[in-house]
């Protein structure tokens, strides 16, 4: 399936793009992370410490075990610092 993957803050800076469309059969966020990390060093670097990352599937905050089947977009970013 085709999935929009988005990156914010220092995750975006490490990956080098704010968003991209990936072709994947990953079932969960964690599967997708493994797939991307296997591709290139910049992904492996960005995803090296998952505790320092947050993930949203279709704009809802979730965790790395979450299913992405049927999802349209997945976003990776550091903990939020608004306010």
């Amino acid at each position, binding site marked *: 399936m085709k999935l929009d993957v988005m990156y914010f803050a220092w995750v975006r800076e490490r990956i080098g793009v704010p968003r991209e469309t990936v072709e994947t059969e990953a079932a969960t966020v964690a599967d997708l992370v493994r797939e991307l990390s296997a591709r290139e060093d910049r992904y492996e670097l960005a995803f090296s410490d998952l505790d320092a990352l947050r993930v949203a599937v279709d704009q809802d905050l979730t965790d790395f075990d979450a299913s992405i089947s049927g999802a349209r977009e997945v*976003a990776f970013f*550091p903990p939020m*610092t608004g306010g």
Partner: protein
Amino acid sequence: MMRILVQEASFDVGAELNAFQAGKTDMGAIVSFSGIVRDLPEAPLRHMLIEHYPGMTERALTKIAEEACERWSLGDVLVIHRYGQMAPGDQIMMVATASPHRKDAFAAADFLMDYLKSRAPFWKKEVTADGSDWVSAKDEDEEALRRWKQG
């Protein structure tokens, strides 16, 4: 009733508070919080950059405001949060709550800030003469959420 604004433009916190209060003769208590870009004592801040996740931001803020309306007796909620580039002293954001009871107005504004801070997709970067750094989330911000987690 609620109004959620995510915008790049600056805003006038006083004018927004006056507009929020106008005509609320059934609400005795209004609480507002405003966040201002602080200068840094160590290295003077050139500017702050705020990145956000368009779409998710509005969605997250609306959910947080809806939860506040369920928990407390509120007549109105206002959230304004900026993104983009800001200078020291600039207004970053504000929340305001209106209630018949002062305790509800206070608790709801405090709750909105705690959730907005760690659950709405904003990220701050500080730019000084020495370079730029993403602001780290604080452990105390996660802890602050725990206060609201059970009845």
